[in-house]
């Protein structure tokens, strides 16, 4: 039994952290938040040059053929840096979808570009208020032509391709691979709570697309794909939670009130201890999640849901109470506390709310419980 990353993996973490300190200082995130860019192109290119976008892609498709432990480590560091790049959309979702369902032709066509970062991919799922389900999907796919509107689509303004969840004429669910460089594709920018990550509304009118893989994709297979993404998302959220905790601790140690560091008041120190407890339980659940993902365990649904719920709760709490710990200054535009508060909320709703994952978690528990009985 060994429940820790390997030496090499821990080295990768140090390296990634150093790289992002250098290349993704808060000013980088701030410039995207303040400006009208949808992401930081320069950072994206450097990240691609580091090979991060190629992490889990097999070498035959131009990837590094590394495992999910490495990808989880990168995800955590990107979360800590609140990196303004389409990594989760392109890597956890689009790349994973093509690797999971794509034909070898599709893999040959798209994976090399995704690996090199020249191609940015995303997943287009949400259509309206409430969660998209196999029943309520309204975007259709007939004879290879997709029609309908998806919104919000993370990184939709800059993506080259989108994996679009839609309903086939036969009524079954289908994942359509859409090259977004077509006239029939209409994208409009969507402002969200976190302008440091661009979102779009994408309207498709008889846009040509190819079904991903053999056409029909069972909804449960699609949700299994989201389970995989949920583990990586959980690591990114964990990075946010830990950075918020670290900043709150640093501030609480140097800010004085009533003649003492505010961190010496139990109202603050116990708040921060509470953050630490949530974060370390989330970390341990994330360890189990990535183990289940990397080892192909059949407990992935439970492990992923648990990691996702834990990281969602930890990151929302830490980001919120980090502002509170900073007091008035934490509420200013000038301080970075807002980055974590915005990103934590947006990530908590990407690929499904806390509620959704709580239910998915319990479904897995019921399954185990029934088998045990």
């Amino acid at each position, binding site marked *: 039994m060994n429940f820790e990353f390997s030496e090499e993996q821990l080295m990768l973490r140090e390296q990634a952290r150093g790289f992002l300190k250098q290349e993704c200082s808060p000013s980088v995130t701030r410039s995207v938040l303040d400006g009208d860019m949808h992401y930081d192109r320069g950072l994206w290119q450097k990240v691609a040059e580091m090979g991060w976008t190629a992490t889990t892609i097999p070498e035959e498709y131009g990837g590094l053929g590394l495992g999910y432990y490495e990808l989880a480590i990168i995800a955590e560091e990107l979360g800590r840096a609140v990196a303004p790049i389409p990594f989760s959309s392109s890597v956890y979702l689009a790349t994973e979808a093509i690797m999971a369902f794509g034909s070898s032709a599709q893999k040959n066509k798209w994976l090399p570009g995704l690996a090199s970062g020249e191609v940015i991919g995303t997943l287009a*799922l*949400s259509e*309206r*208020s*409430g*969660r998209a*389900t196999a*029943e*309520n999907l309204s975007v259709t796919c007939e004879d290879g032509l997709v029609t309908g509107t998806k*919104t*919000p689509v993370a990184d939709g303004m800059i993506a080259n391709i989108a994996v679009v969840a839609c309903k086939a004429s036969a009524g079954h669910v289908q994942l359509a691979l859409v090259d977004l460089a077509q006239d029939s594709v209409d994208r409009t920018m*969507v*402002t*969200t*709570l*976190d302008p440091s990550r661009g*979102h779009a509304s994408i309207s498709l009118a008889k846009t040509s697309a190819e079904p991903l893989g053999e056409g029909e994709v069972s909804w449960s297979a699609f949700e299994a794909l989201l389970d995989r993404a949920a583990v990586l998302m959980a690591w990114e959220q964990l990075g946010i939670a830990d950075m918020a905790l670290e900043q709150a601790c640093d501030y609480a140690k*140097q*800010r*004085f*009130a*009533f*003649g*003492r*560091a*505010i961190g010496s*008041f139990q*109202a*603050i120190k116990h708040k921060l201890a509470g953050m630490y407890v949530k974060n370390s339980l989330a970390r341990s659940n994330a360890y189990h999640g990535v183990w289940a993902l990397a080892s192909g365990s059949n407990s992935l649904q439970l492990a992923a849901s648990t990691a996702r719920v834990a990281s969602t709760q930890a990151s*929302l709490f830490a980001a*919120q109470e980090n*502002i*509170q710990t900073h*007091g*008035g200054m*934490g*509420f*200013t*535009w*000038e*301080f970075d*506390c*807002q980055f974590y*508060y915005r990103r934590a*909320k*947006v990530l*908590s*709703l*990407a690929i*499904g*709310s*806390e*509620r*959704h994952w709580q239910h998915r978690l319990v479904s897995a528990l019921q399954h185990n419980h029934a088998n045990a009985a």
Partner: protein
Amino acid sequence: MDFNDTPQEAAFRTDVADWLAQNQLTDADREGRSALEIAKLWQRRKYEAGWACIGWDTEYGGRGASPIERVIWDQEEGKYNVPSRFFVIGQGMIAPTLMVWAQPQHKENFLPKLASGEEIWCQLFSEPAGGSDLAALRTKAEKDGDDWVINGQKIWTSQAHYADYGIIVTRTDPTVAKHKGLTMFIVDMKAPGIDIKPIKQLTGESDFNEVYFTDVRIPDHYRLGDVGQGWTAALTTLMNERLAIGGGGPGADVKLALEIATLVEIDGKPAIEDSAVRAKIADFHVLEAGLEYNGYRAITALSRGELPGPENSIGKLVGAPKLQAIASFCMDLLEESGIVWSDDNLLTSLAQRSYMGAPGLRIAGGTDEIMTNIIAERVLGLPQDPRLDKGIPFNEVPTGN
């Protein structure tokens, strides 16, 4: 116990309703006027008819109305879309301070203009070094002839950029204990040496300012209370602030959550039928209703001549985190589209505005932690934390820098 008006109250309510109906703002009134101008117009109209600051003595432009009558006025006026926020600080917090501490001629001069809305005031208390620890402020006031010379910086000052006057707490003696060396003054915001810089909040808006004082001269007769009595004077303002702020205005509430939960679906059924959604909405309602009825109990106490006590800290302490929680809950109901910020969608934008604004409410006017301490010490009578800054000269209190 009775929620209904007494005959006298009913009669008063009728008078109020009639006057409001006949004198409400028209589109013509609003035409081409800024929010501030409209507010001043409305305030002036109320003032001339004797309906401004009705709780004040007549000599200051009020009508000596009872607490209940004030509530009735607010309820009736609340039925109309009239701007009021510009006067909350001046009329709600500063006027009561002037009534206690200002010299007679200043009361006679300033209070009617506060009531009529002619002059806007701001409150200059907080400083970068004195947030929760308000009394740790450092802005210096030094006597020079009949004047005081002010140097230093204030922060979190609402309305500073268009205020005519302000009240400022300064340190006149750094060699005595923290609370002892403070003095409060009226300051003319148009005086030379005052430099005002807006602060951009994480919401992107700028409701507050930094105010810099460089050799600003204040005549001694503008002093409020004795030299060294500034903290006592400030407490008058703060006690009224707690009444004025309350739960923290409009925003995501149970009504919004209900509306969204009725529109959005979970697993093909309205979200409101989801048991987890119901449990959360119920808990939010318990807080919201509890605060509302707390308010009625407080008013009843006031109307019986009791003074407003520290228990009023509950309004903000419960209200601000509730706002944050409901806002977050509403966004969750919408799933991924909950992050979309579109002003044409009132439901979501109200939720998101509240989500972004709530952290400020949890801090401004006393953080959650300060409010909790106030309840623990002043309501429950629990002992203070050890005070390392007590009984030693202010300039010897540890600052960490």
